[in-house]
């Protein structure tokens, strides 16, 4: 284990070094920073001003010298200043925290959801549930983040907020909910007796009644919880915010702060959860199917172990192994993973850091961004390998 890590470091450090050179080549070709372009465009710009700006951005020397200069300082932790003169390192640390708050919550949720759906999809293969979740997964695979986030922002907040303030259900919605309840009860009761020879004749009636009852109960609860909520009716602030990660200048006790975080995170994390869920559920389903058809599961069944034990202890535990490495790899890509979603919901996280740096064509910010993401990818690659070897005894690291 220790030897493995040391050996990998011999590969990883040159790799990161090469990555820094490649990044530097990319970033030096990005063109003149916007501030300097603007200065040159000004009619009364003096050469002196432009030169001092070039010095400020650190592009007044030949490329090789710039690289060694930047790299030696970067390794020591001096990341320089960005286009507006702010220190990059504290700024970036602040942005990383914002992004991680969103992405860690979203990743955990999507992994949990994906794993559950994947397991059920695998052990109930080719059922209505399996087909439905498969279709959902394909659907969310095919939706670009911009479309999903834009859709959620419009219909999950901007159109929803006025309604949440004075919630009421029209006839149309009531009919839709009732129909849903009917259909659900009907389907459940049909599936319940699918494989039995003796089927109660009134099962559809019972199912439909139960579904209707559930729907009515849900509507009643809704009326009681939301309908009489005068606090919301009198509160001018929209419930579901669409911009930013916190309410600016918000002061409150712990519970209120958590609530504020929660409502701000709701929509962006929903977008990320749905997209992440698509991948994880497909992966978990495939992995679970693979494991459940393996010899040791057959042996376990032959020994007379109950199906639940076989599924959970022999099946799920082993099916999780490849998924965990995938999740570890995805965590490595987290820092740069939500640029679009963050932009749409106005979060000032790493996405905004990158978009601003790109718009300003600020070399040092871009270098810092790419290097941090590269380091995180490499580190989590290593972690994925270690986890894999720890969980799967067939794989040896040394």
């Amino acid at each position, binding site marked *: 284990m220790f030897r493995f890590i040391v050996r990998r470091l011999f590969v990883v450090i040159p*790799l990161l070094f090469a*990555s820094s050179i490649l990044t530097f080549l990319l970033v030096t070709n990005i063109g003149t920073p916007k501030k300097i372009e603007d200065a040159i465009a000004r009619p009364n710009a003096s050469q002196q001003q432009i030169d001092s700006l070039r010095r400020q951005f650190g592009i007044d020397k030949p490329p090789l010298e710039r690289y060694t200069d930047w790299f030696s300082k970067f390794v020591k932790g001096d990341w320089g200043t960005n286009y507006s003169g702010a220190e990059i390192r504290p700024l970036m640390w602040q942005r990383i925290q914002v992004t991680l708050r969103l992405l860690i919550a979203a990743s955990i949720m999507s992994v949990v959801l994906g794993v559950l759906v994947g397991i059920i999809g695998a052990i109930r293969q080719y059922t209505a549930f399996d087909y439905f979740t498969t279709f959902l997964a*394909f659907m969310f695979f095919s939706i*670009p983040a911009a*479309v999903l986030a834009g859709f959620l922002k419009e219909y999950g907040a901007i159109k929803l907020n006025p309604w949440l303030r004075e919630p009421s259900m029209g006839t149309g919605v009531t009919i839709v909910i009732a129909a849903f309840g009917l259909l659900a009860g009907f389907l459940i009761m049909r599936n319940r007796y699918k494989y039995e020879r003796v089927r109660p004749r009134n099962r559809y009636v019972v199912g439909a009644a139960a579904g209707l009852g559930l729907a009515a109960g849900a509507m009643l609860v809704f009326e009681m919880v939301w309908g009489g909520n005068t606090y919301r009716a009198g509160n001018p602030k929209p419930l579901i915010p669409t911009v930013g990660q916190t309410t600016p200048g918000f002061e409150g006790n712990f519970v209120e702060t958590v609530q504020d975080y929660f409502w701000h995170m709701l929509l962006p994390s929903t977008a990320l959860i749905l997209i992440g869920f698509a991948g994880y559920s497909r992966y978990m389903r495939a992995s679970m199917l693979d494991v459940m058809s393996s010899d040791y599961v057959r042996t376990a069944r032959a020994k007379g172990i109950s199906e639940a034990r076989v599924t959970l202890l022999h099946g799920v535990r082993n099916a999780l192994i490849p998924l965990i490495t995938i999740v570890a790899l995805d965590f490595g890509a987290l820092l740069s993973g939500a640029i*679009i979603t963050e932009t749409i919901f106005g979060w000032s996280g790493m996405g905004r850091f990158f978009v601003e740096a790109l718009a300003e064509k600020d070399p040092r910010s871009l270098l810092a961004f790419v290097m941090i993401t590269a380091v995180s990818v490499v580190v989590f690659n290593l972690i994925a390998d270690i986890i894999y070897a720890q969980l799967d005894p067939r794989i040896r690291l040394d």
Partner: protein
Amino acid sequence: MTEPADSTVIVDDREFSVAARSQWRTIIRRFLRHRPAMISLFVLTTITLFVFIFPIFWEWPFTKRDKTSLSSSPSWDHPFGTDELGKDGLGRVMRGTQRSLEIAAIAAFLITTIGVFLGAIAGYFRGWIDSILMRFTDLVLTLPLLVIVAVVSVGYPGAPWYTIPIILGLVAWTGLARIVRAEFMSLREKEFVEAARAVGARDRRIIFRHILPNLAGPIIVAATLSIAGTIITETALSFLGLGVRAPDVSLGFLIQSGLTAFKTRPWLFWFPSAAIVIICLCVNFVGDGLRDAFDPKQNRIKA
């Protein structure tokens, strides 16, 4: 009359060729029976033909302005509505779909070619060639795809539209290269490769004629899925304003401009979004059908 002799030869030949083709025939049959994939293929073909042929007859090309109906919602004259300058939504969506499909085709071609080539060489020759190529793959993997393309796109603002898929293709081949390499590693030890070498086949022939056909399945599936991946990446790029540039349009570009006026002109967002989702969904289902068709076990882990 030399027919008897000839016919036996033909019969022999046919027998052999039928046996050789039958594997492909089962694959094709399995694919044809995959209903979602067939429906998707049909929809995809229809959309492709429609967006490439119908604009010839449509009276509103994507740059033409109808000054009598600005920002109009969908109607008979403009089924997909118009934007604030009176440009026809349908014309723009058709043009945008064309561009997005072209971008996807170029990128998928490059991804497949580079990925297969480098993966095959690394897996077949092993040793130092493999080490160099795989370290290079690791290097490319450390840099986020979107970031590389975005940075290059900002650096060269005047570049024509096809630079985007070319850069995408030059960066996104890593996954396929790893799959191909792993398969080559195991296949090169098989007896049929040894046999080929024993009869004096050169490396190039062994790689392309003997080993590569065995990988047709995973490669075709990966190539198909990279089409959907490219379209989605292009949307992200366009959202950041780094995709194709006006006056040219792509689906991502249309979605981006539709988002800016969602409240007043939602149809400008809906139609290109629907187009992208339908296309990607179809491509993914076709990929799924191909995977099932090529995989006799049908439960292999997603490539």
